[in-house]
């Protein structure tokens, strides 16, 4: 048998990249980096409209930022909570001590500074469909009541300038992957879907409080390729505080070539498709008696009344869920008492309706809203039903079950 001819040089040259392509990723690759056109400057009219919307949606009640008029403490959810936790809120010491035990949400919110590094398209999409950008933060961006064009206008206001070009040679993603570990990036960040990365020590010393805050606010690097403008990503990695004063992201010592390598991996790493959790199912009603006091302690007073208060006892402001706010019209829903709960809310037609009225599938309206929040967290928002509590951790299924039982039993006092 004659000896086989050796493979031609051309074919052999194809082997390494072929092997590389076969080796990349552990599953279906979700995203292949592509050339995204640079964003031009935003339309000035859109910018102006967006700035007005920043006021209408009361973004400053949670976010601090450039161009935002700071909300006074009594209307700033985060500052109020931070002040209580710091112990300098003007209230009796025993009240402060009690409240400090209960505050778990709205203690950290990213500031809207340095937003020029973001891609306008991402910002608009995020506003239309908020998702879990910061997995270690228990509060998320609320679903706003946006009209057509509102998201684009808000994005224009936050990112008005044209996108600068990215100069320089592309980086080496392999070296970038190694840097993510060596520089300790994974101490704070997660990179969902990317091949597993070891957590190395952070290159910069941070005190425990700053570390905790930074970890809470660190975005999932999965979204960086869509979220940040390429040139801005490079500039950001080189010196974060220069682009966002007050940022919790420390300045890591990186050479220019290391910046390029790091960016190359972050935007180019193959990503496995995200998990799609199934929204949990409603639990069956309990068989034991349930009274209002129990439901009130577990749900209404624990969570709801912060936005659905009695305005008479809050100097006329019953919260966004009662008198309106955050762009929502006043629905006059007071969940601070049994009478308030029983009194229902205003529907879109301006008439009062029961929050227990069944939807077409028989689910009481309030139960449907609580379940919708679970669906939102699972990435399946219902366009016709806003999940409650807004932007917060869903009410546990067992608590929804309790409320369901109470309703089924006739809502006894």
């Amino acid at each position, binding site marked *: 048998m004659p000896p086989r001819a050796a493979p031609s040089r051309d074919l052999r040259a194809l082997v390494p990249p072929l092997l590389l392509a076969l080796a990349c990723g552990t599953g279906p690759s979700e995203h292949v980096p592509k050339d995204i056109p640079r964003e031009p400057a935003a339309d000035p009219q859109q910018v102006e409209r967006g700035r007005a919307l920043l006021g209408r949606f009361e973004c400053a009640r949670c976010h601090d930022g450039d161009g935002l008029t700071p909300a*006074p*403490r*009594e*209307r700033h959810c985060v500052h*109020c909570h931070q002040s209580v936790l710091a112990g300098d*809120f*003007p*209230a*009796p010491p025993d*009240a402060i001590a009690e*409240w400090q035990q209960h505050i778990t949400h709205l203690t950290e919110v990213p500031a809207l500074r340095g937003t020029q590094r973001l891609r306008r398209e991402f910002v608009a999409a995020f506003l239309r469909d908020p998702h879990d950008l910061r997995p270690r933060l228990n509060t998320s961006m609320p679903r706003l009541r946006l009209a057509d064009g509102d998201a684009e206008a808000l994005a224009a206001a936050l990112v008005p300038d044209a996108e600068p070009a990215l100069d320089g040679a592309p980086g080496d993603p392999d070296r970038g992957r190694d840097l993510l570990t060596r520089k300790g990036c994974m101490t704070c960040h997660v990179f969902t879907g990317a091949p597993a990365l070891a957590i190395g020590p952070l290159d910069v010393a941070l005190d425990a409080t700053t570390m905790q805050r930074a970890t809470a606010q660190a975005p999932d690097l999965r979204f960086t390729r869509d979220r940040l403008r390429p040139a801005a990503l490079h500039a950001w990695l080189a010196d974060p505080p220069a682009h966002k004063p007050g940022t919790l992201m420390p300045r890591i010592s990186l050479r220019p070539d290391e910046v390029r390598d790091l960016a190359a991996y972050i935007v180019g790493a193959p990503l496995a498709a995200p998990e799609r959790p199934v929204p949990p199912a409603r639990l069956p009603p309990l068989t034991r008696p349930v*009274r209002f006091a129990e439901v009130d302690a577990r749900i209404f007073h624990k969570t709801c*009344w*912060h*936005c659905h*208060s*009695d*305005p*008479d*006892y*809050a*100097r*006329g*402001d*019953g*919260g966004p869920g009662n008198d309106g706010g955050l762009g929502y019209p006043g629905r*006059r829903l*007071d969940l*601070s008492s*049994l*009478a*308030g709960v*029983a*009194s*229902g809310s205003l529907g879109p037609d301006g*008439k*009062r*309706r*029961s929050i*227990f*009225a069944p939807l077409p599938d028989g689910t009481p309206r309030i139960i449907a809203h609580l379940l919708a929040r679970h669906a939102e967290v699972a990435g399946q928002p219902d366009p016709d039903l806003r999940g409650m509590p807004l932007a917060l951790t869903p009410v546990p299924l067992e608590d929804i079950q309790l409320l369901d039982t109470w309703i089924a039993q*006739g*809502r*006894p*006092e």
Partner: protein
Amino acid sequence: MPRSPRLLAPLALAVLSVLSAPGPATACMNGVERRVDPTNQRIRDAEALLADGKYKAAVREVLEAFPTALRADYRDHRTNLFDRGQRVIALAVVRTKGELKLDRTLQGTTYAERDAGLAWATMILRLHRARGNGGVLLTSELAEALALRPSERPAARLLLKELADGDIMPTARGWAILGMLERDHGDADAAARAVARCKEISPDATQCDIVGNT
């Protein structure tokens, strides 16, 4: 108190600034207000006393917070709490059928005084409702007052029936009163449904039996 007029103005300004400046928790919802504002707590206490049937104590609590609460032509700058306090007094009068002593002219001892007291209470509740205050709860409270006057009972029934039909009756008491009014209207089935609903909600079924005693 300084006699010199020149000192009065800055003093008045200082007093006004204290009274009018928003507190640190102006709109920080109920959880903060109840702890930092004693007037807030006092009116809440009055409402709790009213709910417990301690009508004299409830009225006393309101009048200590707002001595002018009996005046229909006056509103304190703390309008929300002032209105709530007035409603407590009005409901205390209604639930004692006018027998509560309010002041020299409304002592509740004679038929005329009791009727005057009830008229005052009804007027207050109508006034508040006309202002758009209180929502559904105020509607049911007004209906409770109207139900005591034979000429006003049809109006009371309609107010409560609307709440019942929308399943937004705020209290068990409202269902009980509706049951009574439906009975008087001649609709025994509707009366029975309303009383049954009252008993379903209220652990104290005797509250539902006021239907038979009124």
